[in-house]
């Protein structure tokens, strides 16, 4: 599992991914961790296949008992099917996840972890003195979907928005936006169902000050590429399967 520190300040952001040992037939995913003095938040911690490498990777940054918070942007298995395993490993943790998915996500096993339902209008996660914003991203692609914005680090963890399907050894940042488009187009057109939802999200996100857009698959966007992505996405027709 590759680890890349993407922000270092009063707290840290670390990106985990590009796991060379993952089974070939499951989609590669990026996991993000925010580390504060005494706490640790895992965002979209991944599928159950990824649990052991992910846990081992996190242990480079925090002890198990300080993994206090999990976040699931939506209900997909690549996002959170590891929940039942985290549930048995963590003794004092919360899962922040869309309220409408609670009854569904509990199928993965959620007995000792406290499910903190995120209402449709969003909310926040407090870690020590840090406050992260939960930005609604419904229908992108899941009907109950949130992104995490850190106003201090200026990072938006954007779930499946900005995702690209790429080989396991590709770099973690987009280096040539134009050539990256081909790797994102089909994913967004096919998985994202609603042009209306897309427009609402873009409007909301354009108001945020973002240095890094961090999707759950593929590469992160930095600096001007964030705006390039929003412009490209704005002009894209989605929901093409009907």
């Amino acid at each position, binding site marked *: 599992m590759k680890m890349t520190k993407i922000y270092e300040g009063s707290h840290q952001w670390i990106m985990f991914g590009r796991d060379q040992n993952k089974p070939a037939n499951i989609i590669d995913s990026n996991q993000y961790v925010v580390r504060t003095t005494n706490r640790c938040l895992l965002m979209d911690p991944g599928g*159950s296949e990824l*649990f*052991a*490498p992910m*846990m*081992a990777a996190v*242990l*480079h*940054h*925090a*002890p*198990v*008992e300080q993994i206090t918070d999990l976040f699931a942007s939506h209900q997909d298995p690549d996002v959170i099917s590891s929940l*039942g*395993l985290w549930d*048995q*490993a*963590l*003794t004092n943790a919360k899962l922040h996840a869309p309220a409408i998915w609670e009854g569904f996500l509990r199928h993965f*096993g959620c007995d000792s972890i406290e499910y903190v339902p995120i209402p449709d209008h969003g909310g926040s996660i407090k870690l020590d003195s840090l406050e992260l914003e939960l930005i609604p991203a419904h229908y992108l692609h899941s009907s109950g979907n949130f992104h995490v914005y850190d106003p201090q680090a200026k990072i938006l963890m954007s779930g499946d928005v900005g995702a690209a399907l790429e080989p396991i050894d590709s770099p973690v940042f987009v280096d040539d936006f134009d050539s990256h488009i081909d790797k994102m187009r089909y994913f967004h057109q096919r998985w994202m169902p609603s042009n209306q939802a897309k427009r609402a999200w873009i409007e909301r996100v354009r108001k945020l000050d973002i240095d890094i857009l961090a999707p759950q698959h593929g590469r992160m966007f930095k600096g001007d590429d964030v705006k390039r992505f929003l412009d490209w996405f704005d002009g894209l027709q989605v929901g093409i399967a009907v």
Partner: protein
Amino acid sequence: MNNQTKSQFVAVASITSELSAVMVVAKEISLAAANAKAIAFRAGDKAKGFQPITDFINELAKETIDLVTDINVYALLLYRLTVNEYRRTGAYNRFEIATKLAEGALYGASMQAPLENARARMQDCQRQFKRDVAHLLSQLEAVMHHARAARVIAANSRIEASQAGEYLQSLQAVAESVDKAAHTIHDNVQRCRVALSIYRSN
């Protein structure tokens, strides 16, 4: 899922299906008993010896039904336990891998506590499963006992039926159906016991 776990799931699931067949047959016996009672009543003195037998058959069928109802509830618990054990064993195995992968990590040692807990929880489940299997086996033994008793009664019924004159055939048919049903129950329950017995002590 390894073969041991797979066959455990199958063994527990097969109990429920075997027992639902037992239930159907036990209800048949109870019906046969009611039928026999009516015939014996019509036969009057000719079937005097048969009357207490019908009550006995009926009683036996009822007890079997109650017992099987209890066992079904228990089998469901055992199924949940199997699911739990599967989950806990899976977690323990993955915790072991994580612990190995985390060797040399700054906080790798903090994985020890969850690993120990997971092991203890898994072993708890295994012990509980063995206890529950032993209990279930003794309940199944009780059903077998009932089935054997029913076969003895069926044999007695045949003898009594032979004294019943023109009712001989219909009473013999009753004895026949009780015997057949008891046989079926015996076989089904025996299959449950065989499926479970390998989990009793190993």
